[in-house]
C-alpha cells in the first residue's frame, strides 16, 4: 500500500517535498482526493495528503476577500460565505456525484487546481478569475508566494493564473486567497420549451447578447430534460432551454419579462422561481443528467465557440451515439457516451478541429485515462512551452507527474 504523508503545517509540506526531491520519489498531491478521477492517473511512490491544511484564516466580508488553507472543505467555505450572504461567484461545480461520491466533499484548493466553474462562468468568470494569491512549495522544494489579498494587483507575474488549472503539477499550495461577492438578492429562470438545439442556441445567443446580464444559459434536449428532478423540466415532455437572471427584485422581474418577450418567437415560455431555479442550475453545474444510472458512461466536457455548439453536438451523437446537453450558451457541451477503450477521443477532437475549442475527458476508468489524452493535446511549440513552464517549477517531476500530460 502507498504510504501517505500527512503534514499539519506549511513547514512540514516543505520538509516532505525536500525529502521527495532528495529521494527522487514523486508525490501524488491531494486534498481530500474527490477529484482523483479527473486527469490522468498519477504514478507516485507516496501520497502527500494536505487534508490537515484546512480552515479559513481570514475573512472580512466587506473586503470581498477570503483566505484559507487549501484543503478547507467547500462545504465549510460555502457555509461561511452564506452566513455573510456572499458566495463564490464562479459557481464551482461539485464533481462528487459525477464520480459516484457524496456532495460537498471537495476542497477550495481542489476547485482552484482544477479551475472549476459552473453556469455563471459566462458572466462571472472561472476560478482563475477569482483567485487572488497563494503561498506554495514548488517542486524545487522552495517556499514562494504570488499575488496578494487584494482585488486589484499587477505586481509581478500573475502566477495565480498558472496555478489555477495546473492540477497540482507545479507547486503544492499551502494557502489560497479568493475574491468573494454578494449573493444576488433574487434569482429567476426563464424556460423555453420545445426548441431544437439550433434554435435553442440561437435564442441563448440573443439572450446573452442582450443587456440583461444573463447568469446562466443552458439547453437540455428532450431525452436529457426528462431526467431532471425539477418537475417543470422533466414533465415538459420536450427539450428545455433556460436562462437565469439575478439581482434586486424589481430588476429581476424586469429582466425576466424582457427575456420572455425575447424567447416568445422561439416557442412556449415558462418560469422557474427560487427553489426550483436553484435545483435546476445545480443539476446543470454538476452534470447530474450523467450521474446515477449513467454512471457507467464516459463523460466529456467540450468547450467551443457558442454558435458552433449545436453542430458539434449533432456530429458527436451521429458518430458516437450517447447524449449531450449544453451550458455556457452553447459553448460548453457535456457529452456522455457508452464506455469504449479509446473514449471516442480521436473522433471528438476531429469534430471540433475546425471550429476551435478543446475536449476534456472528465469521467472514464483509470486504464482509459492512462491510454487517452485526457486534456486537449497541444500543438508542438505550445506543448514545448508548457513543458518548460512545468520545469520552471518542478524540474525533477516530483509533483503529480503525468496527471495532465504523459511524461510531464
Amino acid at each position, binding site marked *: 500500500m502507498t*504510504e*501517505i504523508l500527512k*503534514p499539519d503545517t506549511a513547514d*512540514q509540506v516543505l*520538509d516532505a517535498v*525536500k525529502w521527495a*526531491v*532528495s*529521494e*527522487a520519489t514523486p508525490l501524488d498531491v491531494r486534498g481530500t482526493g474527490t477529484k482523483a478521477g479527473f486527469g490522468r492517473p498519477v504514478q507516485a511512490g507516496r501520497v502527500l495528503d494536505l487534508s490537515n491544511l484546512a480552515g479559513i484564516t481570514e475573512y472580512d466580508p*466587506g*473586503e*470581498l476577500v477570503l483566505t484559507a488553507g487549501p484543503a478547507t472543505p467547500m462545504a465549510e467555505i460555502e457555509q461561511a460565505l452564506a452566513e455573510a*450572504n456572499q458566495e463564490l461567484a464562479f459557481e464551482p461545480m461539485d464533481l462528487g456525484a459525477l464520480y459516484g461520491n457524496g456532495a460537498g466533499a471537495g476542497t477550495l484548493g481542489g476547485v482552484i487546481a482544477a479551475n472549476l466553474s459552473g453556469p455563471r462562468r459566462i458572466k462571472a*468568470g472561472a476560478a482563475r*478569475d477569482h483567485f487572488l494569491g497563494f503561498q506554495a512549495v*514548488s517542486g*524545487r522544494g*522552495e517556499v*514562494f508566494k*504570488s499575488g*496578494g*489579498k*487584494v482585488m*486589484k*494587483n*499587477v*505586481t*509581478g507575474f*500573475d*502566477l495565480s*493564473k498558472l496555478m489555477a488549472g*495546473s492540477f497540482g503539477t507545479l507547486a503544492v499550495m499551502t494557502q489560497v486567497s479568493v475574491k468573494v461577492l*454578494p*449573493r444576488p438578492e433574487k434569482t429567476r429562470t426563464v424556460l423555453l420549451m420545445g426548441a431544437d438545439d439550433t434554435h435553442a442556441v440561437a435564442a441563448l*445567443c440573443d439572450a*446573452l*447578447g442582450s*443587456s440583461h446580464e444573463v447568469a446562466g444559459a443552458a439547453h437540455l434536449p428532450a431525452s436529457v430534460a426528462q431526467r431532471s428532478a425539477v418537475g417543470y423540466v422533466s414533465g415538459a415532455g420536450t427539450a428545455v432551454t433556460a436562462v437565469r437572471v439575478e439581482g*434586486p427584485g*424589481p*430588476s429581476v422581474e424586469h429582466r425576466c419579462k424582457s427575456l420572455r418577450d425575447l424567447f416568445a418567437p422561439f416557442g412556449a415560455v415558462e418560469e422557474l422561481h427560487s427553489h426550483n431555479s436553484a435545483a435546476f442550475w445545480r443539476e446543470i453545474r454538476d452534470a447530474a443528467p450523467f450521474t446515477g444510472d449513467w454512471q457507467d458512461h464516459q463523460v466529456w466536457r467540450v*468547450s467551443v*465557440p*457558442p*454558435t458552433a455548439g449545436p453542430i458539434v453536438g449533432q456530429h458527436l451523437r451521429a458518430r458516437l451515439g450517447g447524449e449531450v446537453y449544453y451550458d*455556457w450558451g452553447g*459553448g460548453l457541451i457535456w457529452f456522455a457516451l457508452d464506455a469504449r477503450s479509446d473514449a471516442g477521443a480521436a473522433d471528438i477532437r476531429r469534430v471540433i478541429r475546425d471550429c*476551435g*475549442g478543446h475536449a476534456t475527458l472528465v469521467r472514464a476508468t483509470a486504464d482509459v485515462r492512462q491510454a487517452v489524452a485526457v486534456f*486537449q493535446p497541444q500543438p508542438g*511549440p*505550445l506543448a514545448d*512551452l*508548457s513543458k*518548460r*513552464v512545468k*520545469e*520552471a517549477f518542478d524540474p*525533477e517531476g516530483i509533483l503529480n507527474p503525468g496527471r495532465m500530460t504523459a511524461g510531464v
Partner: protein
Amino acid sequence: MLMPKPDQGVIDRRAEIIAAMRAIVPGEGVIADDAMLRAFECDGLMAYRQLPLIVVLPETTAQVSEILAYCHDNGVKIVPRGAGTGLSGGALPLADAITLGLSKFNQVLDIDYANRCAVVQPGVTNLGVTKAVEGDGFYYAPDPSSQIACSIGGNIAENSGGVHCLKYGLTTNNVLGVEMVLMDGTVLRLGGKHLDPGGYDLLGVLTGSEGLLGVITEVTVRILKKPETARAVLLGFNSSEEGGDCVAAIINAGIIPGGIEMMDKPAIHATEEFVHAGYPMDVEALLIVELDGPKVEVDYLIERVSEIAKGEGAIYSRISESEEERAAFWSGRKNAFPAVGRISPDYLCMDGTIPRKKLGLVLQRMTEMSDKYGLRVANVFHAGDGNLHPLIMFDANQPGELDRAEEFGADILKLCVEVGGVLSGEHGIGVEKRDLMGEMFTEDDLKQQQRVKCAFDPDHHLNPGKVYPTLHRCAELGRMHISRGQVPFPDIPRF
C-alpha cells in the same frame, strides 16, 4: 534608476542591424534618425528618457517573427511598445535594444456578436474596440483613463483596469485569446472564441507580464451589450474614514456598483477649480457611485445607496437626473490628473492597492509624510477595489524635489505593502517600482517568477531591466542542488 549596462558590441553593429531590419520591414518601418527616435524616448513615465538603438514598426505577424528570430540569433534586445502611454516605464527604451512598436497593427479583424467577441490587432486603441461595436450597442468593458490613446496590446501587457473593474473585471478577465510571438520567432495561439482552454493558463500569465514574455500580434476580447441606463450619485463626508465605511456598507448590502470612486479634499478642490463639475467644496471626502442596468434596477439601487450613505453620515448627496449631469459628475474625476497638473508644475502618480478598511490609517500616515517631505498630495481612489492613486505634487526645477517626491512615493508604496496591500494595482512595475519589489517579495518569490520568464525567453532579450530588480542568468536560476538520499525522512504524520 540603474538600467542594465548597454552592450557596446551591439551598439557597434547598429548599421548591420538596421540593414537586417530593412530587409524584413520595407520602407519607413525602420526608424534610425535621431530626431525621429526622439518621439520614442519615453512612455507615460516621462521622468526617464533614453533614445532607443532603433525603432522598428512591423505590419505583419510574419515580420514580427522574423525580427524576433533575428534578434534572438544575433543577441539583440527588444523593447515592445504599444501606444507608449504606460505610467511605469515598461516601454522605456534601452540604448542597445530595438524598440518594437505595434502601432501599425491597427485593424479590427472580426466582430462576432453571436459569440460576443471581437478579434483585433494589438495596436487598436482600447476605445477603438468600443467604437467598432458601439453602433450595435456593444462595448469593451475595461476602461483605463488613457483609453482614447492606449492600445489593447498594451492593456494586455499591463493588465489594465479602470473605474469599472469591480463589477466588470480587469483586462485579464476580458481577454479570450491571443496570437503571440516568442523571442525565438515561434508563433503561438493561446485561447480563442471558446472558454478556458485546458493546459497551463499561459494567457493568464502573459497578461500583465509587461512585455517580458512575448509580443502580442492579435487579440480576441469579450464584448458586452451596453447597460440600458446608468445614474450616478455624489456623496460627501466629513472624513475619508466615513467615506470608506460607506463603501463597505454598500458592498455589505449586496450592491456591486458599476463604478465607485473617492476623492479627498485636495483632489476635489483641484478638479472643481479646473472643470467646475459642481462638487461640494466643504467636504473632506467625495464618493461618486454609479449604478448601471435596467432603469428600474438603477432607480431602485440608487435610492438604497442614498439611504445607506445617510446612515453612514453623508453630509451631501446629489443624484444625477440626466445623462449630462452624470457626465458632469464624472468630468471632475476623469480630469483629476490634469487638474493636479494645473496647480503644480509636476506630479507623480502613484498606484498601490490596500485592504479598504486600512484607508483611514493610510491617509493619516500619508498626511504625516506630506509634512515630512514638504510636498502636497491629492488622492483619488478606486474605492471599490482598494486601488489608491496618490498624486504627489512637486517642482522638478527645484533642486532635489524630484528625489524627494520619489522618496515620498516609495514610502507610500511601502506603507501599502505594510498594511497588507500591494505595490501596483493597475499601472505595472516597469522601471518605476522595480527596485521596490523586494518590499513585497522574498528572493525566492522573485526567482520563481523569473524562472517563468526563462521558460519564454531564456536569454533575457525581451524588455530586460524591467519589473525585476536583479537579472539572474537562467542557467543559474534553473540550477538545483540535490543531495540524493541525504535529506532525512520528514518528521510528519504518515499512514
